[in-house]
């Protein structure tokens, strides 16, 4: 009896877990999120070390082996684990370098739309009135277009299709989500007493925006950014597939899919592996994002 009691006391006396530990415990409950995180870490390592991990150069053409099947298929060559494409380039090496591109695309798109969206959202919330209305109407207009349609239009406006232009287009397409999110979060924070108190203490608008209010809007933004990462990769790949994004010989996954169009009926590996790479990457970010949302926002968890 006594031991049990002291155990209970010891448990009661132990300080409550820190915020980070509590977050991690809640996050780790979600097995999918852990799997997503693990895949993300592997992808980042591969992308950073692409030059060392990849067995060949992504653009080197091996003239002796065009359309070589994967190593385990009859006629396969252990030199080219996932086979080669129509120009004799090693698909595995192209995928590994493509991982670097895809992660960079995701990071750039999210950074750009997050930064601009935060700025616009905060401005709308703080300025109110006509600025608020104009900005939000503008975002409504952008939201009316199906995302891929808008991206195609922006690429057309920018002139020639390229990786940079496609990234820019995808950033604009996702901008309204961040703007709306930040505005809504900032508005609900602005009504709180601590903001009034800070304002009374003489804080300027910029300080109020960035130091007082913004940190309290971060949780939903992190979730949106993670999920935005995956939709950026998907949209960019779709644009490249349509020939409106990265151009050959860039080892971008969507471009590789487009390149497989002519050959996939006799060289299934040219189609299968780039698509799987996109699917696995996007899935990892989505699983991770779902886990983050559940852990950061216990209200949504059921």
């Amino acid at each position, binding site marked *: 009896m006594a031991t049990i009691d002291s155990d209970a006391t010891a448990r009661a006396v132990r300080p409550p877990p820190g915020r980070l530990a509590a977050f991690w415990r809640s996050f780790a409950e979600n097995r999918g999120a852990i799997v997503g995180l693990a895949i993300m870490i592997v992808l980042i390592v591969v992308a950073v070390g692409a030059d060392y991990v990849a067995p060949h150069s992504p653009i080197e053409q091996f003239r002796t082996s065009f359309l070589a099947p994967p190593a385990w298929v009859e006629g396969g060559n252990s030199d080219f684990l996932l086979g080669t494409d129509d120009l004799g380039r090693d698909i595995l090496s192209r995928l590994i370098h493509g991982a670097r591109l895809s992660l960079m695309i995701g990071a750039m798109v999210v950074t750009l739309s997050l930064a601009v969206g935060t700025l616009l959202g905060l401005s709308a919330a703080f300025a109110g009135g006509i600025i608020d209305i104009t900005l939000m109407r503008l975002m409504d207009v952008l939201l009316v277009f*199906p995302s891929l349609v808008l991206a195609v239009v922006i690429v057309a406006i920018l002139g020639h299709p390229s990786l940079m232009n496609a990234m820019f287009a995808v950033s604009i397409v996702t901008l309204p989500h961040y703007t709306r999110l930040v505005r809504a979060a900032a508005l609900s924070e602005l009504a709180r007493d601590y903001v009034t108190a800070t304002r009374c203490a003489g804080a300027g608008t910029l300080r109020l925006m960035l130091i007082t209010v913004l940190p309290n809007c971060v949780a939903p933004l992190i979730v949106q950014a993670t999920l935005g990462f995956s939709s950026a990769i998907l949209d960019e790949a779709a644009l490249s597939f349509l020939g409106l994004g990265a151009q050959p010989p860039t080892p971008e996954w969507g471009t590789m899919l487009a390149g497989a169009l002519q050959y996939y009926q006799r060289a299934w590996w040219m189609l299968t592996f780039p698509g799987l790479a996109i699917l696995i990457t996007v899935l990892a970010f989505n*699983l991770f994002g779902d886990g983050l949302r559940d852990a950061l926002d216990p209200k949504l968890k059921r």
Partner: protein
Amino acid sequence: MLQFILRRVSLIIPTFVGVTLLTFALIRLVPGDPIEVRFGERGIAPERLAELRHEAGLDQPLWKQFLDYEEQVASGDLGTSVVTKQPVWTEFTQLFPATVELSVCAIVFAILIGLPLGVIAAVKRGSPFDYGLMGLSVTGASMPIPWWGLMMILIFSVGLGWTPVSGRIADAFYVEPWTGFMLIDSWFSDDDGAVLSAISHLILPAIVLGTIPLATVARMTRSAMLEVLNEDYIRTARAKGLGAGRVVLIHALRNALIPVVTVIGLQVGTLLGGAILTETIFSWPGVGHWLVESVQRRDYPVLQGGVLLVASLVMLVNFGVDLTYGFLNPRIRR
């Protein structure tokens, strides 16, 4: 209710003007002068160019040009294709039924499969079936559509030879374009094989286009059902001794349907965006394929008019969903 409708209309008008502003800007922002683009590679003499620019009103101040454009749009003139010399509206109305047919089949597929799966997952919450379905649903939402479509062709068309690779109907059949919907037109044609051919052409694109809506519908149905199943009136219904099937299907599902119907209505944008990829993969002669081609051919009037029509369509449907929702749920009328 009237007030609610009026308020929604007052919101939709500035959005529409904004959309026209964007499509107006589109034709001016794309590289090249609209008149020069029309003459393409052949070029045009400077005097003739100035003359044509004057005729088209391109030497007017921008605000005047914009007002002219608004007037044009209001009178239903969406410009003329540079490539085919056909009015954009005519081309759109010829291609639109194909896109509608594909989208309707895709969404029916998504509902027929997604709704029951979502209900079962909610009822068996926490079971392997629930986890499996949620896993599949995230996978569906993460699917790169170009790849998914080509893989389906690779497996079912090339590998198994079950379905044709592209188009709407086999060349062997001639079907009088009556409604523009191949399923209906082929039904009324005398040829018995025509319907089967149309269905076999439609099935893969519909599945591919319906995949993301399917994931969304299944997920939304599950969470809406979970919410409703916790309500007091469900407990009451159970306590009354009603059978489990009756409670789930009559009491719970009916109330869970409101958010699900909203989500389905809002899929229209997803479908039209997805149509760009699906129609390109399956050479489906619809609006999405047409838009992509217009960019590749630099046929900017088509892009301008087509995008305006697509956006207007999405706006109209969203408006309809809004009204229905307000009708069904008086709480949001304010």
